[in-house]
């Protein structure tokens, strides 16, 4: 029996267990009338453009080693998952999730006519626009505009650690950005509860003040977790995310950011450190959300503006690329490999890979399969969901 078969059979057992547990624990979501926003989405942005090829390594592809004489991850260092795919060694802490069938690896996620500017490309991801169309609102802002999360939620979404609202940018959504809950609660004292106003702009400001007050009323940040959160900024962001999820009034999406993936120079140590932080953060997230009995209704998604160029550059780094690999994790994720590994022998003129999965198909999965809301209006087209979440 080869390793793949072995994995498959053992994982399907684990998957069955996970489904069973999931079904039992969502009783909390009994009032799921409108949309399934009690299903939590946690987005992890890998800012700067994570190198997908060294994240999920095609360790049997001689072209990979030819393109990366200095940066390739050696075959025996890779954490092998499948005949042709292995994890960067720093990601070893999430191997148990793979073995439990709770990690979906989405390969070759990108979009047509890729843009190689950080700024523009993340805007394309955040607004879910075609690459030549400029949209103002984030894709989740459009979704929540059409199908709002329950009013009783502390907020529709919380952005942790950055001021940039990304997928929640634009008016009409109750998005709160904060670095830690205590600081937010201190600042929020400057907001006043709303009243009536004479014009649209005034009304908008008062609505935003009311959003702040509502979020501040529901968040307290004092839940005592048994989980130990990793040291460092990302660990702190994960802790804050868990504090927010611990508030009983709910929130549909939390976004955390891990920065520093723009590895033009000296990639190996930098990416190893970052992927290590990512892996430890995910493990802590799973542990803390399991304490809260929320892991089975949580979907964790990584994303980034782009991947990196297959051929290493002359500075022991990699330059801006196109499609990349992303992770989906959670108690009800259907683990496995999705999409296609990049074809390194068929690179574009500028040395980049073609995409296999449109990122909007990933979003469509979130909308249709996770939240049960229509995806077509928000995504401006029909994108087939990917079967990486279970009902």
């Amino acid at each position, binding site marked *: 029996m080869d390793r793949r078969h072995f994995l498959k059979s053992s994982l399907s057992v684990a998957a069955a267990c996970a489904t069973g547990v999931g079904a039992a624990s969502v009783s909390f979501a009994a009032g799921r009338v409108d949309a399934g926003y009690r299903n939590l989405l946690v987005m992890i942005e890998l800012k700067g453009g994570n190198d997908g090829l060294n994240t999920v390594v095609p360790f049997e592809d001689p072209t990979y080693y030819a393109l990366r004489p200095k940066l390739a991850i050696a075959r025996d260092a890779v954490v092998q998952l499948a005949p042709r795919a292995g994890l960067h060694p720093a990601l070893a802490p999430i191997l148990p999730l793979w073995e439990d069938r709770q990690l979906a690896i989405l390969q070759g996620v990108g979009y047509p006519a890729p843009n190689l500017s950080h700024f523009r490309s993340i805007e394309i991801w955040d607004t879910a626009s075609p690459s030549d169309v400029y949209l103002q609102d984030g894709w989740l802002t459009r979704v929540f505009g059409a199908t709002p999360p329950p009013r009783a939620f502390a907020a529709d979404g919380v952005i942790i650690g950055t001021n940039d*609202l990304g997928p929640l940018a634009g008016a009409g959504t109750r*998005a709160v*950005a904060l670095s830690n809950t205590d600081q937010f609660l201190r*600042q929020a004292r400057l907001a006043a509860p709303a009243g009536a106003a*004479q014009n649209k702009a005034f009304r908008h*400001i008062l609505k*935003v003040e009311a959003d702040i007050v509502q979020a501040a009323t529901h968040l307290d940040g004092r839940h005592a977790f048994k989980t130990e959160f990793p040291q460092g900024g990302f660990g702190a962001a994960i802790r804050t995310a868990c504090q927010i999820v611990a508030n009983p009034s709910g929130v549909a999406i939390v976004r955390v950011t891990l920065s520093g993936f723009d590895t033009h120079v000296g990639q190996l140590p930098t990416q190893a450190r970052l992927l290590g932080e990512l892996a430890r953060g995910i493990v802590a997230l799973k542990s803390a959300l399991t304490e809260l009995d929320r892991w089975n209704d949580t979907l964790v998604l990584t994303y980034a503006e782009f991947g990196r160029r297959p051929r290493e550059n002359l500075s022991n780094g990699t330059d801006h690329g196109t499609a990349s690999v992303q992770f989906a994790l959670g108690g009800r994720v259907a683990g496995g490999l999705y999409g296609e590994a990049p074809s390194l022998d068929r690179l574009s003129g500028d040395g980049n890979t073609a995409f296999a999965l449109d990122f909007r198909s990933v979003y469509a999965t979130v909308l249709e399969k996770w939240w049960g809301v229509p995806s077509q209006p928000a995504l401006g087209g029909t994108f087939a969901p990917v079967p990486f979440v279970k009902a």
Partner: protein
Amino acid sequence: MGHNPASPMMRFAPPLLRSTVVALSFASALVQPVLAATGPVLGYDDARHLLARTGFGPTDAEVRVYAALTRDAAVAKLLLDTSTVAFTKPPASATDADSLPPPRGENATEAERKAFVQQQIREGLELRAWWVEEMVTTKSPLTERMTLFWHNHFVSGQPKVRLSRLMYQQNATLRAHALGNFGMLLHAVAKDPAMLVYLDGVRNRKGAPNENFAREVMELFTLGEGNYTEKDIKEAARAFTGWSVDRATGQYLFRPALHDYGVKTVLGKSGRFDGDDVLDLLLARPETAQYVTSKLWREFVSPDVDPMEVRRIAARFRDSSYDIRVVLCEILTSKAFYASENRGTLVKSPVELIVGTVRVFDLRPDRTLPFAYAAAGMGQNLLAPPNVKGWPGGETWINTTTLLSRKQFVDRLTRADDTPAPTASAMADGNADAVRRQRFIRQMDRGLSGVHFDSDPWMTRFPGETPVERARWAQRLLLPVEPQQATDLSADSLAVVRGLVLDAAYQLK
């Protein structure tokens, strides 16, 4: 004062602008009404409205000067008292003609490339700090407001342009024409080196046209969406081929070998057009005047455009061969501008909020970089608009994060000063540099704590026998409309000021 920008003027005047009427049109539009200025005077609230909408946080003294003028005289004064150059001296790096060009890809070492990037980042910060300083101190606030308006119309961003020197040059060009002639501004911007880099003009060559500039000049700079075809863009792009930048000098350079001299058909007209010809075709269309007038309306009057009024004013704009002071004069003397239902309907941009607060409270910061950072934190990173469409503005300035940043900013500036100033002895013991450095770090750390606001003397500048009377004037000055929450005007002066600036109405203009 009066630093002279490098003049990127046209080598030849486009036909539309050859008329001498151009120079005279604004004067003739104004002189008559001003001479006949015998109507009622503006009064305090209208004067405050005019200055707040066209400047940054007018002071009580400034408002009182305009309050005594008729509407026409006030607007004439406002438009005539304008500068075409900055009052403060730009950073040396911005005008240094010998500064290095970017290292060429294949020849550059990693160290060279890094040093270049670091230098541009540093220079970009200096440039932002300088611009904020100019806005904070200028005697011609309308010039800066219009420079900012054109920065958000003819967008370029340093992240792509990279060379801060080119960004400065563009800034000076926008300022030189800010209240001049829109046609000349358009022609100047089309040959502006930063723009040629930002919208890929430098990559636009015969046989391999790059349509980026041709598209945006129609969609965003002149006609507006829907008033041209894809074919027009393709043809126009050919006309702009060969418009390039001299790598050595950073100046505009026409490269004949890269120019397509063939016949083009744009907007139904055919000829061996070059770029200037195409710009004139765009200026000849009524849609251009309407598009720019609508945008000015949304900047100065209300988010809701009155189509009849815009058509009327756009016609005047076009008839004046695009004299910007003519269109502003029409807008600023219109009924709609002063209508009570349009008061407090516009959201202050971060820069307006910040610079306005500094000016109205006469804060005189010795460093302006923290203010540029503050603006960036509220979503307006000068010299780096989000994309070619610029900052969308309006209500999008305000979300939970930015509103809290805005409130925290005014909170910090109007808090009783809790950081002791460096003592005289520390300054005198020759350790001044260390003190300065520490203060800088603290400013960066805590935002803006080095700035001190003393509310008592500020409040005594208002007329009135009692503190409550003076507080009432302060409210009239600081807020465009009634506050959301009534401030206790009999409280101590700092409490009054804080109550007013923390009110939601302070976010509006």
